[in-house]
């Protein structure tokens, strides 16, 4: 039981702006991405010779309200899930790769989301391509396979909804950064 999804989106913003927005996605919009309850940076490593930056963040996500049967079994309305996000940015080659995996609830399901931001092949200095692969795997020996299937479906729906919301947040942050950059340029021109 594996469900896999791939998504692609083109941001009409340059790579440096889009990847900046990606860092700010969870922390700037806590109201929109309300399923994300907490984000911490756990490690960071810069290689100043290669121009690579590696970081690890923890992302805490609250699930939507669980189906009735699960609420009865687990005894909670929703569950909190911890994920680890590992990011590698290669500034020299303008590549950002992000892998998110869940670390809790792994006895029920495993979710892996791989994302990549790279310059658009036709307009490398103006646009950015976002590619994402999500795989959701239910544990075959999970005590209640039928229930697990429900969880899987629920999570999949939520993942798709949230990644659409995430793109919207990203677009907004990009616009904001664009406006900020142009006002900084004009202030600089005026000599403020």
């Amino acid at each position, binding site marked *: 039981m594996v469900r896999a999804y791939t998504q692609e989106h083109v941001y009409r913003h340059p790579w440096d702006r889009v990847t*900046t927005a990606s860092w700010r996605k969870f922390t700037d919009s*806590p109201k929109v991405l309300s399923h994300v309850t*907490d984000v911490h940076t*756990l490690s960071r490593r810069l290689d*100043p010779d290669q*121009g690579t930056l590696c970081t690890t963040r923890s992302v805490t996500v609250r699930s939507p309200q669980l189906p009735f049967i699960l609420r009865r079994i687990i005894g909670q309305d929703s569950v909190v899930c911890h994920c*680890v996000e590992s990011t590698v*940015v290669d*500034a020299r080659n303008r590549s950002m790769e992000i892998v998110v995996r869940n*670390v809790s609830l792994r006895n029920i399901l495993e979710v892996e989301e791989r994302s990549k931001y790279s310059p658009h092949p036709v307009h490398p200095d103006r646009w950015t391509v976002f590619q994402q692969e999500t795989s959701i795997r239910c544990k075959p020996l999970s005590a209640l396979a039928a229930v697990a299937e429900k969880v899987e479906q629920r999570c999949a729906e939520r993942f798709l909804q949230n990644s659409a919301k995430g793109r919207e947040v990203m677009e907004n942050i990009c616009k904001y950064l664009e406006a900020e950059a142009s006002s900084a340029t004009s202030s600089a021109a005026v000599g403020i």
Partner: protein
Amino acid sequence: MGAKNRSSYASPCSQLRAEYHDCFNRWYSEKFSKGQWDKEECVAEWEKYRACLAQHLEDRHLRRLLAEADPAAFPKEEDPAHSADGSSGR
């Protein structure tokens, strides 16, 4: 549920986290992503934030993640349960 979800934003490290993330975001957008990657910045902010996390992170899962991310700073707790998974008997 609503208000409870946000409780983590009032955690003891949220201020230090915000300072670090602000610094990081600025460095990333103004320098690193534009080709100036030779110098690490926000080191003081990072140290303060890390020290706070090490002290206040109460969640067991997050604690383990932190330990894995930086084994030197967080000596592993004794965890005898994770030995070889022999026969469980049932």
